């Protein structure tokens, strides 16, 4: 089974990289840009058919290492 994890900065955490990307896109004439936030993306493949168990394990991976819960939020999605 394959899962994706998308990690984003919490809404009240300053994201200077996202701001710079936004400014640059505006300089490239992409108008009407409202807001850009930069994040991280992981794809994880697991040898296990028990979807509930895998989701639990991936959630644990997020909490233990992949995500800093003070500043980041995450979403887990099944890809295949």
């Amino acid at each position, binding site marked *: 089974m394959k899962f994706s994890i998308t990690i984003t900065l919490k809404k009240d955490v*300053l994201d*200077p990289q996202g701001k710079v990307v936004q400014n640059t896109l505006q300089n490239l004439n992409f108008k009407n840009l409202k807001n850009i936030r930069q994040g991280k993306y992981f794809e994880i493949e697991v040898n296990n058919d028990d979807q509930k168990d895998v989701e639990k394990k991936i959630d644990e991976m997020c909490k233990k290492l*992949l995500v*800093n819960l*003070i500043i980041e939020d995450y979403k887990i999605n099944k890809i295949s």
Partner: protein
Amino acid sequence: MNSTVIVFPGSNCDRDIAVALEKMQFKNKMIWHKETKLPKSDLIVIPGGFSYGDYLRSGAIAGKSLIINEVIKVANQGCLVLGICNGFQILTETGLLKGVLLRNKNLKFINKDVNIKVIDNNNKFLKKYKNNQILKINIAHNEGNFFTNKDHLKELNEKKLIAFKYCDENGEINEDSNPNGSIDNIAGIFNSKKNILGMMPHPERMIDNLVSNTDGTNLFSSLLN
């Protein structure tokens, strides 16, 4: 005093801190991160550098290394722990210190001597400094922008857990004297028991007038008594 410096792949201030500790008469040992036992230590130092190339987040991988479990254990028993720069980032990733160090507000790696003010000297690390004393100490980091939640900030202020704040040469603490965007200009903090200090500036670089100044010396001599 026995000190131990933890060395990770990518640590690059480990030898500097060892020189500083030995100059101040600490009996120092260097310990590789794969070790599972710590020598008997009165002080553990987590040095600056770029452990694991700052992969994932600064300090995230080192914060889960084998030796860190031992550091957490002795820190909770009251052993003195000092985290400098990447060491501070690692301590926040382990949870021994609350808060987080974000990317510098200006997105630039900053390497310069800055002024910091001693906020509270009523602890083992800073007792040889005076309150409000201004020190000139080097900073060299990309992620030094300290951030934490309101409750922790309140706790830091009420329990006097702020060690240093960035200031200008006259001691003014304001946005102009804040190099990296840290909340309230915070440059270093203690845990609630004040046996753990995390700081972004590098006191080990300020122990000799030949290369810089000696503003960092008193941090080490405070610990000796």
